[in-house]
């Protein structure tokens, strides 16, 4: 019962082509432009986030909502393009959907419990 070696590959020392430019090089290169565009978009959106935070949307809460919407768009770009989630295998998506549901449950139900105390009482921290 000795430790197994965790290897890896189709035996590269026999395969001299492992360092050749791969067949899908053009495809990868085209993604590079996309990455740059998304990076630029993220920088612009950062500026937008900052700018919008100085605009009065009526109430503090509305500003928070707007800020979170922009943040979500940025996060979506990072996730979809940089993290290759767009076109990722379904297994990964299943985990993430479940995670999203449970995270949402944590947020929402905790908030619900806080905002719905026994009538006549309140959950104060101060």
């Amino acid at each position: 019962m000795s430790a197994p070696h965790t290897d890896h590959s189709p035996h590269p020392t026999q395969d001299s082509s492992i360092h050749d430019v791969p067949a899908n090089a053009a495809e990868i290169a085209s993604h590079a432009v996309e990455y740059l565009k998304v990076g630029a978009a993220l920088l612009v959106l950062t500026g937008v986030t900052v700018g919008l935070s100085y605009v009065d949307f009526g109430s503090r809460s509305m500003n928070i909502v707007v800020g979170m919407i922009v943040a979500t768009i940025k996060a979506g770009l990072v996730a979809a393009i940089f993290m290759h989630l767009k076109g990722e295998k379904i297994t990964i998506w299943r985990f993430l959907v479940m995670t999203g549901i449970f995270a949402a449950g944590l947020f929402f139900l905790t908030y619900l419990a806080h905002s719905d105390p026994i009538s006549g009482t309140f959950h104060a921290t101060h």
Partner: protein
Amino acid sequence: MSNLISKYLPLFTDKEVPYTVQARPDTGLYSAKLGIWLFLASEVMLFGGLFSAYIFLRIGAEPGYWPSGLLNVPVGTMNTAILIISSVTVVFAWAALKMRQLGKYRLYMLITILCGAIFLTVKLSYEWPAKFNHFGAFIKKESASKYEAFLGNKHLEATGQSPRWEITGHLLDAPKGSSYAHQAERNAEHFAHETGRHDAVTPAEDDYVIQVDAVNANPSDKDNDRPHFWPRETSTTLAVISAKDVESASVFAPRHSTYFATYFLITGLHGLHVLGGILVFLYLWLPFPGGTGLYKTNPEHLANRVEIAGLFWHFVDLVWIFVFPIFYLL
């Protein structure tokens, strides 16, 4: 059936753990990618727990006890940009590896590491120390009218805004026995040097003297109702506060308020993750056998490792994308 066997068999008779580099046909994934996404899912729940605490504490905070405008927005924006750039360069590093361009890989990886290091340096050598050098005293509600000149609550009430209970700035003098005595002394010397006023106020032993921030110098000025993008100079106005009027007072450390507790914990944990990412990238960039050394024998495996580390790094960037607005801006 025999196709299935011949497709799988070499991997299994190998007795080594299969699918570490090659993808498993039916899932289309190599194992580490599955592993890292599961890890990221758990991290989503970790930061989710912290964010839910933030929400809970913020909505539960009594008006006037959840501040805004206390963090340096330009610096935070710059740090955000640095992380975004590093996210781009790490994916370029991965692409370079896939295209077997070792030189480009090393360049982009280095830039990524440097960006991460700059982010941490800015945070640890500027942002946090600046906070630890800034002081805030919460005034008891029953004593607040005495300090109306610094709190401006009449104006705030008239305009339907939350009350202000805190006076912030640089501590120039603390009550006897305070743990902030050294800091106060330093600040007082600096103040005297700057303004030439050596003993503008003679406080009693039990007083705090604070060189107040701009917002406390002119609390009823409409301009001060909203935070400003560019941080403003601390004013030269001094507030003398009696210790018995103070509810709680400390530097902007985790203990100061739930706002700073959450700020430091979330950015601190985030910072630890940045550090972890940097260390992994360093390992992959340096000529270790499991790092760049792997390029010679198995570049695809190295590319996978960079992809995995990159996914972690993007997640770290993702967290910051939310942290930045909720603490610095909103």
